[in-house]
């Protein structure tokens, strides 16, 4: 009996080893196959990214303007020095931060109550929701044109008409408060996004928790402060991160409405780079600006993740 048992055991061990080997081979094959199949996409994406980046770095070291494209020369880091010491740079950096910060504040401070309202059972809720979300689907150029010509126009705009109705002098938005005007337009576009994210978060809040708070004697306001707001911390973080990425590069709204002006009042980094390249035709300087913008975006992202990214951890 005993030898047979041992033999069986040995067989089993061998079989186990064999099985393990097959599994290892199979895993390796799967990995190789996976990489092979993935590589075309990765290579394409890599080229897509690396060629413009390399070109930008190359151009940023050249003195190269389209006005005088025959005479170009290598100037080293001269373009960076020029871009960073340009007074327009600091102004536009400040404008960028004001624009991003204001729009974030407006969308979250208005988006939260709006989401709370949309979470209530009202007649025609689905239609109301669709209408609230609609601005997000309008392309920036179109919405900027609508705001410029139909709403904020000092003579024929709706706001001017309302002001006249009350006997007030209409505001000439794009001359008297150009930055505020741009902020309002961009905030209007991004409010639906914030509302939508916060609304879905509200809907995932546990009903029994709210009832427990009700039994504990919490008022609607206390329930909001102690239960709903902490519950919304994570979606608010998501809104801030995603909106920041897009708001750092706002361009169409400024281009269509104010053209960066008056003066530099509504010029942000993105618009400054555009004006260097296609108004002043200074390709080298604009390339340097583009690289600076990449660095700024990374700095902002770094601080954002440090400050609020903790909310995303479980």
């Amino acid at each position: 009996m005993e030898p047979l048992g041992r033999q069986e055991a040995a067989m089993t061990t061998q079989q186990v080893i064999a099985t393990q080997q097959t599994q290892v081979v199979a895993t390796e094959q799967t990995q190789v196959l996976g990489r092979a199949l993935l590589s075309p996409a990765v290579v394409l994406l890599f080229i897509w990214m690396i060629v413009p980046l390399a070109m930008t770095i190359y151009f940023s070291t050249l003195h190269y303007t389209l006005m005088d494209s025959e005479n170009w020369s290598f100037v080293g880091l001269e373009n960076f020095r020029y871009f960073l010491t340009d007074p327009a740079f600091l102004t536009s950096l400040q404008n960028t931060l004001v624009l991003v910060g204001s729009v974030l504040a407006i969308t979250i401070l208005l988006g939260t109550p709006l989401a709370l309202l949309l979470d209530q059972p009202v007649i025609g809720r689905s239609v109301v929701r669709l209408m609230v979300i609609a601005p997000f689907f309008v392309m920036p150029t179109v919405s900027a044109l609508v705001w410029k010509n139909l709403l904020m126009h000092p003579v024929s705009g709706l706001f001017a008409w309302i002001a006249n109705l009350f006997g007030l002098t209409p505001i000439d938005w794009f001359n008297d408060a150009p930055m505020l005007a741009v902020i309002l337009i961009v905030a209007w576009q991004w409010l639906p996004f914030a509302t939508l994210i916060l609304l879905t978060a509200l809907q995932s809040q546990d009903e029994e928790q709210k009832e427990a708070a009700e039994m504990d004697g919490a008022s609607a306001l206390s329930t909001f402060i102690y239960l709903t707001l902490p519950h919304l911390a994570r979606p608010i973080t998501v809104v801030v991160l995603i909106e920041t990425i897009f708001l750092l590069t706002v361009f169409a709204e400024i281009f269509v409405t104010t053209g960066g002006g008056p003066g530099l009042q509504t010029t942000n980094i993105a618009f400054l780079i555009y004006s260097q390249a296609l108004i002043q035709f200074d390709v080298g300087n604009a390339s340097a600006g583009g690289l600076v913008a990449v660095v700024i975006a990374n700095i902002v992202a770094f601080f954002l993740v440090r400050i609020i990214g903790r909310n995303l951890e479980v």
Partner: protein
Amino acid sequence: MGQITLQGVRKSFGPVNIIKDANLDIENGSFVVFVGPSGCGKTTLLRLIAGLEDVTGGQILIDGRNVVDVPPAKRGLSMVFQSYALYPHMSVRGNIAFGLKMAGLPRPEINRKVEAAAATLNLTPYLDRKPRELSGGQRQRVAIGRAIVREPKAFLFDEPLSNLDAALRVQMRLEVTKLQKQLATTAVYVTHDQVEAMTMADKIVVLNAGRIEQYGSPLELYEHPANLFVAGFIGSPKMNFVPGEVAGEAGVAIIGIRPEHLKIGKDGDGWPGRVSVAEHLGSDTFLYVEGGKLGTLTVRYVGELSLRAGDRVWLTPDPARMHRFNKEGSVIRTS
């Protein structure tokens, strides 16, 4: 004090009547269990008492005061939810203290009460943990702590043990019962588990389809069920119902006899039958007996009985413990 009285309480959701005319008197300090199959309205009835649902009609009196228009927090009741409903971002201390904080108590008093409650429930080492860092049983205790710290007139429990595993459930069952006796506070407890109901309750309310079928102590319900529903619902294994000829001979529509009140013998006397399945648990033996025109009867025998499927047996019902029902399903009292 915590006397709760329901007078003609009704509740409908649209055209559906969930609770139909509930009348009930819950004495101060008693442990009352609402039991019934799912969808019978037991949780709704509890939520009506809590104030989380508004009554469609009738009155709910707490210590003699009609509270149907009083908001939940002002009724002086506290509730333990099925999902525990702990506040996830607050520590155990924050969870237990929340109600007191909302009531505007001074901080030292809150701390004292929270620590006392935590000590009662063996939660002191966990006071600074978050709910997600606790086990199911500990979470359950935090939910109970949140309820007792407010010193309510009555506790409301909504199937609080249904998320725990079987062993823990038995343990928590004991703890909850002990705690309730110790605090001598009225408790209303909802469950679908009749073992929980029988073991914990001073009095049981059996609900079926929005109607209170019977209200009484566990043994009353066991020994004198008012109707077929209660007879079939209370007791495990279920009571045997024998309709037809045999019942007709006794002059009633249905005879009910519990499995433990059927004497089983290998020869001779009573109703003949054949064992179809025998379950040997060691302490008990459950036998499913094919009784011909009697149908399948369940027999419980305390101890081990060496019978196997296919064996012929004879069953003798204990006449004193037979329940007789009329056509409507109500019990016929003989005495």
